[in-house]
């Protein structure tokens, strides 16, 4: 029996052996079933660590596809006169080449690219790639569980995500092109196949893909919630949970409450498209012909969509916040400042996220009195957000900070979150929003606060937990290049967009050089495009570093390389199925005892000493 053969090699393993909880896990021969066969190990795996890697690598592939799309439309915006004929081998008929050999991007396809970029990045990369990866990887390891509550549902969660991606990817190859009505898919454009080419089969596949995606999210979310509530090891009370777990837990709850509403919105949209009902459609003329849709309201869709859409941005950012809290604390060698305030601010943000959705609709004809309500709650979100920012900075203050790629990206996250958060206060005011809505100011705001910041949280997590995933380190020098390139590059891309937006440059336009008003921004648009290409190059550096390090990176030689307190670092370097080779650890203390009583760190498995001070 494994339990009997197992001999502890470190102090932590000794403590687990001595104080741990014997669940007789290793007395069953299920190891074979999970680990030995190639298909069950790498493909239809039910092990949470393998599923996490599947989410991560799939997310990375989507990030590359989505990023490349943004480069194509940035080239169109920055260099509208240049020939794009060299892209013809890839984009085919979407590049039309004239008699002089000058290739131009098809206008319809420009919108398709913008739409796909948004959909892919929001859902596939920053939702599935971020929370799918780290919730799966860290929840069982950090709470002391053998695996998720239901490994089967967990596996299905990944494969529904894969299926969803497959459907979306296939829509890129339709002769009418993928969906092109914006990632929010507002009707009437999305509801009427005759409205434009992108609304034909492209929209159908887009909807099917997202329904599969929601199924994946719900299967995952149900599992995360159940695992956190039910499978915490002995002694792991909610107030001892590391902050990433709190963040993943609350994220799952938000997803579970908001994604079904998106399904409802899509359900009615599908009836409008397929059966000819008029939930969202009324009095529409196409080509001078009145359609027989009467009595619907497109605003209804917007309400339903943003009831998901706004919580969705917190589904993206909360996991990043949790990761950053942990990475900052470990690398500053200090307990996280204001642990309970961090938890309560996560809960407050989650609660508020459900009552602010109409701030996306100030320009859709929402009653100004109702708008006031949404303005106030939107601005109140600044309070828990500021609490978090204050606590991160206070955690860093006076710490002996290790500057490695993980901690740099965590600090970069705080920078991005502040920059993007401040413009959120502008946009949250309905009076200002009327001027700034649908301009590049909005593009700059959400890319910094949600896109780039969430990417920084994700990178921080990947660099930090890469040794736990693959038993090797990523290259630190390349990581630092990646960080500085991305930080400076991202600010170069998005900072100037604020000025464009304040000058009234509208978003989603195909070109600006034909407008007298916006012509003088041509150089700035070129600058943004060049910065975007360079920044993308630095992400390729990350991808190379990632795959190179899986096979050739510096090997992990100790179980706890960062001298961290949390349970995942008490598992062996090669973590097998069931995570702990012997007993399950029991938890004796909270996860942030750094620098306590003159000791650098005290792991969670170590009992409170006799002379130890009681407070954190």
């Amino acid at each position: 029996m494994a339990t009997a053969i197992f001999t502890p090699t470190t102090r932590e393993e000794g403590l687990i052996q001595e104080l741990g909880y014997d669940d007789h896990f290793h007395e069953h021969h299920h190891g074979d079933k999970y680990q030995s066969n190639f298909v069950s190990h790498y493909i239809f795996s039910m092990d949470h660590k393998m599923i996490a890697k599947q989410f991560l690598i799939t997310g990375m592939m989507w990030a590359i596809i989505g990023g490349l799309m943004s480069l194509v439309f940035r080239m169109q915006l920055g260099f509208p006169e240049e020939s794009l004929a060299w892209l013809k081998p890839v984009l085919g008929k979407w590049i039309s080449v004239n008699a002089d050999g000058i290739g131009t991007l098809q206008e319809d396809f420009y919108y398709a690219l913008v739409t796909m970029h948004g959909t892919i990045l929001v859902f596939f990369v920053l939702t599935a790639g971020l929370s799918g990866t780290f919730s799966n990887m860290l929840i069982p390891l950090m709470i002391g569980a053998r695996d998720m509550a239901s490994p089967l549902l967990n596996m299905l969660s990944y494969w529904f995500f894969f299926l969803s991606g497959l459907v979306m990817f296939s829509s890129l190859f339709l002769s009418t092109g993928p969906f092109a009505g914006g990632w929010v898919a507002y009707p009437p454009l999305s509801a009427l196949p005759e409205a434009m080419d992108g609304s034909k089969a492209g929209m159908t596949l887009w909807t099917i893909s997202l329904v599969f995606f929601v199924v994946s999210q719900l299967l995952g979310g149900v599992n995360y919630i159940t695992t956190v509530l039910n499978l915490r090891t002995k002694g792991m009370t909610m107030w001892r949970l590391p902050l990433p777990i709190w963040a993943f837990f609350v994220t799952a709850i938000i997803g579970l409450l908001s994604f079904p509403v998106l399904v409802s919105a899509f359900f009615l949209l599908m009836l409008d498209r397929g059966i000819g009902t008029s939930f969202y459609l009324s009095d529409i003329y196409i080509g001078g012909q009145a359609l027989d849709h009467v009595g619907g309201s497109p605003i209804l869709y917007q309400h339903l969509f943003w009831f998901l859409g706004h919580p969705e941005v917190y589904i993206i950012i909360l996991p990043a916040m949790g990761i950053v809290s942990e990475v900052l604390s470990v690398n500053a060698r200090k307990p996280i400042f204001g642990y309970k305030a961090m938890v309560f601010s996560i809960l407050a943000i989650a609660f508020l996220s459900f009552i602010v959705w109409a701030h996306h609709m100030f320009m859709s004809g929402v009653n100004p009195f109702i708008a006031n309500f949404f303005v106030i709650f939107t601005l109140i979100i600044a309070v828990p957000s500021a609490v978090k920012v204050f606590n991160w900075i206070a955690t860093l203050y006076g710490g002996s900070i290790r500057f490695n790629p993980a901690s740099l990206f965590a600090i970069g996250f705080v920078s991005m979150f502040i920059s993007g958060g401040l413009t959120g206060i502008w946009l949250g005011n309905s009076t200002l929003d009327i001027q700034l809505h649908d301009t590049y100011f909005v593009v700059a705001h959400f890319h910094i606060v949600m896109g780039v910041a969430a990417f920084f949280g994700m990178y921080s997590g990947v660099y930090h937990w890469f040794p736990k995933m693959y038993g090797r380190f990523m290259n630190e020098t390349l990581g630092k290049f990646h960080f500085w390139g991305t930080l400076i590059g991202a600010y170069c891309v998005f900072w100037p967009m604020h000025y464009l937006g304040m000058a009234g440059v509208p978003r989603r336009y195909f070109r600006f050089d034909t407008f007298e008003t916006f012509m003088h921004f041509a150089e700035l648009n070129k600058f943004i495009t060049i910065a975007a290409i360079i920044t993308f190059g630095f992400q390729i550096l990350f991808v190379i570093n990632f795959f190179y390090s899986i096979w050739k990176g510096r090997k992990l030689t100790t179980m706890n390389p960062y001298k961290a307190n949390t349970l995942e670092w008490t598992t062996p370097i090669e973590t097998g199925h069931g995570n702990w080779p012997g007993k399950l650890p029991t938890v004796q203390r909270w996860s942030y005892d750094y620098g306590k009583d003159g000791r650098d760190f005290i792991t969670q498995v170590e009992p409170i000493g006799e002379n130890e001070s009681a407070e954190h």
Partner: protein
Amino acid sequence: MDTTIKKDMGAVTRHNKIHPKKLVLWVSIVSLVMMFTALTSAYIVRRAAGNWLEFSIPTIFYVNTLVIAASSITLHAAYAAFKREAAGAYKGLLSLSFLLGSAFVVLQLLGWEEMAAQGLDIKINPSTSFVYALSGLHAAHVLGGIAAMAVALVIAFSQKLKRTPARQLRLELTLTYWHFVDILWIYLIIFLSLQR
């Protein structure tokens, strides 16, 4: 999930009040509630906007409420019989619940036909579209419950009745879900009759 893992989870969660699978079901029910809340909220918002065709919902829908409520009661009685290990009563009551559940779906279809016969088809106005959409989506969830009962029936008639924890858990999950779709329909019928 294979049995060994299940045993392991049992060991870890013995001190917990609720079985993980039950928690999974309850959490899923919460998300289904959100889905229907969204649709009924959309109904209220849309109705307030005017251009709304008023009509009375088919009587079959009211009768059907009794059918599904009855099936909930019989399934609960079947569960009680299972716990007593009364094989005959269990098989009979489970079959009855299955038949009542199936009858519910058929009667809903007849309700739709009654509406269509009055010219109230799904396209005529959002007020009729909503009735079809809500009852259709509900019926889809009822079908899921019927499928679970069908599995229970196959096991009931092919295996000897033994009150094992695994079988009891499965039956309890089916029962909870069935009560949920029952209560959901009662909510929908009350909502639809009060909203007009």
